[in-house]
């Protein structure tokens, strides 16, 4: 049976794939876990638009994601769920609109494979539901790449307008997305300037390219003074560790490991097959398509090289997470190349494999979002134990703005410097991390207090023990 699918069936399949991932992503949103960067986002979104721009300017990223999230918050409220949905939207746009662009140029098989690949590349599922900018950066860079190819083939103004908007948006979303956007502009220039032109035809598109670059720069110009300040700040002090050979080796597991043996190698083999297929396309007369695919892969590679070089010249500024904006292009590369030479049974086997890989990814994500950390238990424990005359104390000062998300300043205090002799609380619930010495029994007794270990708890990426610190029976409470 070799029945051809109708247009409606194909559209239905693409919609079903997008819907499947939408359901997966939504199902990962019903928790109350946030980590430091997400806490920063949430804190920043309390400000108005001007405050957000000033707040971002004093941080290290550009402001567009926060502004998008703020618009969403104004309409749908500031619950964590609605913030997570902000991050899902661009993934969904890639899987529908992006897939449609790929379908038009590379056929339905590549479009369907793209949806699965984008959803299944191991690092993407986690960041699709994070209150951070990465999924938006994926959207902008993927579309810039796709429209750059359309602009090269068609030389139409609307595609150049598309790359102007997406490049500026990428630059305003993440600086390493900006690097990727510059690379894509560079590739487009090389293609327009040096690709062979049929005899008698005039080379076209360079003027459009130049105008696009100028408009992109013009759009980004208002942010350049802030960017310079941020670079100055970062060059003095930044948290990223030095990049060594070992760090670079760890890039691959971060992007492709699915927490079971051999998965990084499996993805690297798929990439190798993709490269082989792209080379074959170039050799066998599909030069434009093969080159486009290779450039999709080269974008993250050169973004990483730029990051590593910059880190060595200035100070460490690059971590593998900053390659996430290019993951849509990696999915385009794999979809275009792997589907080109795959006969029907191999294509179906590839989809089955991607579906199963998606299951593994999803299982891992469920664990990460719902079981890995103790956030829900911690919240439940403190809710049931902390009385009106009690207080929560923390001893990891840097985590204050994470704790701010969970408890107001009236409900919590910093442990360091607490005057136990004049402490008005009945019970102090100490979140005891390893970043400050645990108060000893002798020290507490000296001030008329005692401690009881209540268990190991934590909030995403921050484990602590909870001690109930209460007065010794014969100690009167301070007023």
């Amino acid at each position, binding site marked *: 049976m070799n029945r051809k699918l109708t247009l409606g069936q194909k559209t239905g399949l693409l919609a079903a794939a997008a819907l499947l991932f939408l359901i997966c992503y939504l199902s990962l949103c019903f928790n109350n876990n946030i980590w430091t960067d997400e806490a920063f986002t949430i804190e920043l979104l309390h400000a108005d638009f001007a405050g957000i721009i000033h707040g971002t300017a004093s941080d290290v990223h550009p402001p567009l994601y926060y502004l998008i999230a703020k618009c969403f918050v104004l309409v749908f409220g500031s619950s964590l769920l609605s913030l997570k949905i902000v991050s899902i939207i661009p993934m969904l746009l890639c899987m529908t609109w992006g897939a449609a662009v790929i379908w038009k*140029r*590379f*056929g339905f*098989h590549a479009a369907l494979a793209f949806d699965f690949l984008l959803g299944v590349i191991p690092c993407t599922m986690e960041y699709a539901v994070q209150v951070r900018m990465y999924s938006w950066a994926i959207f902008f860079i993927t579309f810039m790449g796709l429209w750059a190819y359309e602009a090269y*083939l068609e030389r139409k103004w609307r595609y150049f307008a598309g790359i102007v908007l997406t490049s500026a948006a990428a630059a305003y979303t993440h600086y390493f997305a900006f690097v990727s956007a510059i690379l894509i502009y560079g590739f487009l220039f090389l293609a327009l300037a040096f690709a062979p032109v049929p005899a008698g035809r005039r080379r076209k598109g360079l003027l459009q390219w130049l105008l696009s670059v100028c408009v992109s720069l013009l759009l980004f110009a208002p942010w350049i003074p802030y960017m310079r300040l941020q670079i100055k700040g970062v060059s003095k002090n930044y948290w990223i560790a030095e990049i060594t050979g070992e760090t670079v080796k760890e890039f691959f597991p971060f992007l492709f490991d*699915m927490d*079971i*043996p*051999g998965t990084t190698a*499996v993805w690297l083999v798929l990439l190798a097959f993709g490269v082989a297929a792209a080379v074959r*396309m170039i050799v066998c*007369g*599909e030069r*434009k*398509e093969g080159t486009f695919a290779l450039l999709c892969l080269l974008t993250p590679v050169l973004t990483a090289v730029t990051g590593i070089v910059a880190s060595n010249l200035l100070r460490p500024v690059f971590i593998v997470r900053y390659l996430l904006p290019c993951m849509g292009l990696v999915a385009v590369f794999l979809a*275009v190349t792997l*589907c*080109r*030479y*795959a*006969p*029907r*049974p*191999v*294509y*179906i*086997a*590839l989809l*089955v*494999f991607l*579906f*199963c*890989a998606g*299951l*593994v990814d999803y*299982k891992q994500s469920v664990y990460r979002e719902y079981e890995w950390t103790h956030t829900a238990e911690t919240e439940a424990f403190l809710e049931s134990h902390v009385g009106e005359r009690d207080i929560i104390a923390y001893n990891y000062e840097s985590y204050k703005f994470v704790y701010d998300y969970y408890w107001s300043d009236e409900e919590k205090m910093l442990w360091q410097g607490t005057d136990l002799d004049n402490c008005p609380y009945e019970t102090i619930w100490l979140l005891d991390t*390893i970043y400050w*010495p*645990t108060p000893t029994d002798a020290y507490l007794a000296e001030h008329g207090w005692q401690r009881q*270990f209540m268990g*190991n708890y934590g909030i995403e990426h921050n*484990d602590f*023990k909870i001690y109930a610190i209460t007065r010794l029976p014969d100690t009167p409470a301070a007023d």
Partner: protein
Amino acid sequence: MTWITRQSLPAVLTALAVAAGWLLIFPGGVIKDEEISRTAADYSMDTGPVGEVAAIQEFVPRYDRIRSLGVDIGKLDGRAGQGTLYLHFYDENLQEFAVVPYDISEMRDGELTDIPVDLKLRAGSRYYVGILCKDYGEAAPVVHYRSLSGNGPAENLHFYYGPTVIDDASANIRFTYQKPLHPVQILFYDSLILLAGAAVISLTGKKKDRKEHEPYAG
């Protein structure tokens, strides 16, 4: 077996290889998942040197196979940086059934070092692991331990230095288990084998039978 023609032989062999691959994954279990269990982060205390006297941790494994055991030793400012550390494994009747040596110079100082042990145990039964060093030169290393009640891991019971139990102590240890794959993980490997099989059959099949994708529109 006349129905297997010369042309169909590669496909039949590949199909057999795929079936064999599937059986090796399940029920064969050639690929295992890993699970790690360790003490929670906390301040560590030192035993005395484990040269003449062993540090012994009583434990109850959660799975049947331990791939490696992470051990945290202190090298006393480099004075205890050489020699061989031995992990002696005893069953609940104190019968020794395995000894695993490890070069102390290869071990981290004050951090966990995973020592490959690859032991088949009975989940839920009681065992003891003794840590003792030989040929250590100037000084023997110490073993780091933490409060059991606050840190676990759930496997650890009593911790001894020589014959003496240290109250509420738990060796700073990391158990890395090998455990059977989850059904979803089995599906992943099976689908990978299927993909590889389909690719091999298509490559070895007759070229005219290969219906590749149409060339891209350009």
